[in-house]
């Protein structure tokens, strides 16, 4: 895994102010909570991020990596998102409101692709929200599904030795987003879904 670069400086905003406000509102609850292991070096950056051609932007940095149940090794690179174009972590974070890369680790490592063609892997994983409580004075813990559920789609390009990735590795995750219609999934506008905060805040229990 390559050394992570510090977060790059934000640049000017190409998106409209009202859309940025919607994102801010939708992600306002995200600070301070999350998976029990906090990604200290992967911080929330100011919105939006710098797209290429800024050569200083660390697009190829590996944010996380995971291996699925079929043995496919998948990288999550920082990449970029300029409001209309991009892929990888920056797009997942800024467009789809998934602010914790451990969600990627968890979903990939507990699933297998539903499709695998020409190095392109597609995953669809359901996440059920659960509520846990102590029973019998703390003797054990019981968890019940709350009924809230959504499905995440992940698109990965594992093609190696490509000209557009300097280290010769895979491009990795292209996108990861919640399918519309899931509980708590916000359809900000047509063609744009955002995950509810609990997806990034909560911890996997299975």
């Amino acid at each position, binding site marked *: 895994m390559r050394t992570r670069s510090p977060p790059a400086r934000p640049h000017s905003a190409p998106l409209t102010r009202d859309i940025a406000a919607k994102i801010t509102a939708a992600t306002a609850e995200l600070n301070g*909570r999350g998976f029990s292991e906090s990604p200290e070096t992967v911080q929330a950056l100011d919105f939006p991020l710098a797209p290429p051609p800024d050569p200083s932007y660390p697009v190829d940095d590996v944010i996380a990596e995971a291996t699925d149940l079929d043995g496919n090794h998948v990288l999550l690179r920082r990449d970029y998102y300029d409001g209309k174009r991009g892929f990888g972590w920056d797009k997942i974070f800024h467009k789809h409101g998934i602010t914790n890369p*451990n969600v990627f*680790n968890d979903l990939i490592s507990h699933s297998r692709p539903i499709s695998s063609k020409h190095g392109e892997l597609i995953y669809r994983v359901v996440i059920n929200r659960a509520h*846990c409580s102590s029973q019998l004075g703390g003797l054990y813990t019981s968890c019940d599904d709350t009924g809230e559920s959504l499905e995440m789609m992940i698109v990965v390009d594992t093609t190696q030795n490509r000209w557009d990735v300097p280290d010769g590795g895979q491009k990795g995750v292209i996108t990861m987003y919640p399918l519309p219609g899931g509980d708590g999934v916000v359809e900000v506008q047509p063609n744009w879904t955002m995950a509810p905060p609990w997806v990034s805040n909560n*911890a996997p229990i*299975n």
Partner: protein
Amino acid sequence: MRPSTEVESRSSAFAADVLRNLLIYINQENAEGTDTFLVSHGWTNGPVMYLVYKAPPSAITWGLVRDTRESIIDPAPWPSLEVAVRYYYLLDLCENRVSASFPHPGNDPDVILWHGDQSYNDDPCEGLPQHSADIPDQYLYTHPPTSTQKALPTKSPPIIEPRRYADPNEPLPPEAHSPGR
């Protein structure tokens, strides 16, 4: 042929190839029973591709307009026709689906919602047809009858146990974990 004309010719040919292969790709994916896209019209104008379609269960008519000279992932040309087709399908069509309950922003279901390089939200979409009836018949797309009826060798999708997420501030069971530990 002058160099600029050659470039334009290649760009136009690439756009036509993208559209032709994207329609084939859509039919194949429709036949596999994944996300269904019903294309009603498709055409190119120079390097630009136009696709008008519906994505059931939503009743909205969508229009995709893309200059195929540039990738929608990287600020560079597409590395190949295959990659272009794949990501127009996966990102422009699949990632951009809306739920059945999502209302038409203009409250007029007959108005095409253009997205891609021109958006109904950003500009008036000058030069783009606003209704399917405005599109010349020559751009009408008819699904090939054999593609949806042909039995494709599909395998059952893997059974993947749903993930369960709980509030870490609540008492969690011992098996609760964080990826990477």
